[in-house]
């Protein structure tokens, strides 16, 4: 198998044994990019020269016996993580030329652990979307079927990992933007607890929901990346000062005697029959591992989408007020006076979905509507959180499908925003409650599209997710396919 298809831990073994070099790995990844990127378009920007220089440095370190958690491993970054001296666009015209003067904390940590950066991955503009069709730089295609979307908003990161265009990637998840594309591209994706991973240097979308997390080919790689990126950051005021366990220790511990909650509200009409079948099969596997699966109820589930599409646009309309054509990014040359310049820059700089959400957010926060929408939504959000608190008194983790359907066709939902929003119906509650979730592959449709399911746990319990996902992955043992590109 080509080096670009292996996992972090497999490559580390080879690097340690002297069977390969970081330069070989990075060259293999870029050869793969050269052959498939024209079809997939996972990246907005490739940093090949820098990556080869970093690989050469990594090889020097390895020769000296200094191997860290990610030494020499090619990693892709979603293009909303600030990278010093490297354009960070958020897939938006309004930031198309923005060159950050600093690194995001996550980027700093990955760099310090020896990672090699391959480039910046494509995404929905400002992470607003479920299909990576709203990027100003063009769409990304699903490596398993080029006529279909890879999911979103971190579609580029998911597609790059699935296609062998990097070994692992970083994304962000505000309403499912890591787990949904991970499921649709057949890779592992984790959204950590709110506050677990520092967001310093993450371009903000919805500040009470955003969280950074990894895309990997297996659960062990997810643990390896979490070990590097998790932890308190004094630069980020919502970062939680809690101990970070060694997640890798949990991959093979097993789950004998655990209780797994299955919420009835997530097995509804309208969910694709093949998805349902695959998830039911996964439940059987989990039971076979010695866990007891019990039915639980999360009674406010049906309100999650409505709450999310009030809270997230409200926060976004405030966060995106900073793009005014003054300090960075795009400025319309047509504005004759200041107010006119603001309006023309923002109207030409943002895409239609971003404008729709700014409008929705501004409306629900505007005088006379605040109580009816934002306050009401924040109250229902408290009830959604309470549902989870009560559920976790009865079970260790919760198991649900990640998405109601496999990857849909390009253009299928772009004209109907509400239909597009519904594709996040199973992932949004996690963000509203601030809890962690992990999406794990659980098979394929007969047409060859990947299917995923997710585990959810209480605050700061990512280790439990690694533990059960690791146990599942080992015993599910379904055919390990790679996309035929």
């Amino acid at each position, binding site marked *: 198998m080509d080096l670009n298809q292996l996992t972090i831990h497999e490559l580390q073994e080879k690097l340690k044994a002297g069977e390969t070099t970081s330069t070989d790995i990075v060259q293999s990844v870029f050869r793969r990019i050269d052959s498939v990127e024209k079809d997939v378009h996972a990246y907005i920007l490739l940093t090949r020269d820098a990556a080869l220089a970093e690989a050469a440095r990594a090889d020097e370190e390895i020769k000296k016996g200094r191997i860290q958690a990610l030494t020499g491993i090619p990693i892709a970054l979603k293009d909303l993580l600030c990278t010093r001296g490297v354009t960070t666009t958020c897939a938006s015209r309004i930031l198309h030329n923005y060159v950050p003067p600093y690194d995001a904390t996550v980027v700093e940590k990955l760099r310090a652990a020896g990672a090699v950066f391959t480039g910046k991955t494509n995404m929905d503009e400002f992470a607003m979307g479920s299909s990576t069709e709203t990027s100003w730089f063009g769409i990304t295609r699903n490596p398993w079927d080029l006529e279909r979307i890879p999911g979103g908003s971190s579609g580029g990161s998911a597609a790059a990992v699935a296609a062998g265009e990097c070994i692992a990637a970083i994304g962000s998840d505000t309403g499912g933007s890591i787990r949904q594309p991970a499921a649709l591209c057949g890779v592992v994706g984790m959204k950590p607890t709110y506050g677990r991973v520092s967001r310093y240097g993450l371009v903000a979308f919805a500040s*009470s929901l955003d969280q950074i997390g990894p895309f990997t080919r297996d659960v062990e790689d997810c643990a390896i990346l979490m070990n590097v990126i998790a932890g308190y950051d004094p630069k980020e005021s919502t970062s939680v000062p809690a101990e970070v366990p060694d997640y890798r220790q949990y991959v093979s511990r097993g789950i004998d005697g655990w209780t797994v909650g299955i919420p009835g509200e997530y097995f509804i009409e309208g969910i694709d029959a093949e998805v349902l079948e695959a998830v039911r099969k996964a439940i059987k596997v989990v039971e076979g591992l010695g866990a007891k699966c019990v039915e639980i109820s999360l009674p406010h589930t049906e309100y999650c989408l409505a709450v999310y599409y009030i809270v997230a646009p409200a926060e976004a309309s405030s966060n995106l007020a900073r793009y005014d054509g003054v300090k*960075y990014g795009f400025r319309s040359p047509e504005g004759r006076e200041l107010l006119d310049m603001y309006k023309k820059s923002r109207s030409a700089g943002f895409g239609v979905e971003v404008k729709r959400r700014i*409008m929705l957010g501004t409306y629900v926060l505007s005088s006379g509507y605040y109580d009816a929408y934002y306050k*009401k939504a*924040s109250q229902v959000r408290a009830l959604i959180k309470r549902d989870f608190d009560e559920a976790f008194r009865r079970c260790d983790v919760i198991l649900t499908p990640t998405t109601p359907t496999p990857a849909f066709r390009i253009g299928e939902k772009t004209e109907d925003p509400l239909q597009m929003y519904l594709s996040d119906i199973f992932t949004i509650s996690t963000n509203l409650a601030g809890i962690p979730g992990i999406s794990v592959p659980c098979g394929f449709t007969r047409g060859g599209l990947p299917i995923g399911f997710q585990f959810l746990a209480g605050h700061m319990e990512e280790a439990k997710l690694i533990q059960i996902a690791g146990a599942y992955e080992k015993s599910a043992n379904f055919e390990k396919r790679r996309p035929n590109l």
Partner: protein
Amino acid sequence: MKIKSDEVTHVANLARLEFTEAETEKFTSQLNGILLYMDMLNRVDTEGVAPMTHAIAQKNAFREDRAMESLPREETLANAPDARGDFFRVPKVID
């Protein structure tokens, strides 16, 4: 109708956006659809429920009042569409 086109224009102005007539019409119809969907929240009894503003129970994060290193001014200004000397330049605000 939840929202009419003149309200859409008003909200656009608050958001510092401007639309063509066709765009305003499309947004009006789409926002109506989305806002109608939100009506389902009225079915939930939230009497006495405190609004949730944070995903985790955390107090305000204070740090010591100590000057820290800032980004150099040249780097901060480097991304500006129009900068002169130590300033961001903008079109005129008043006549």
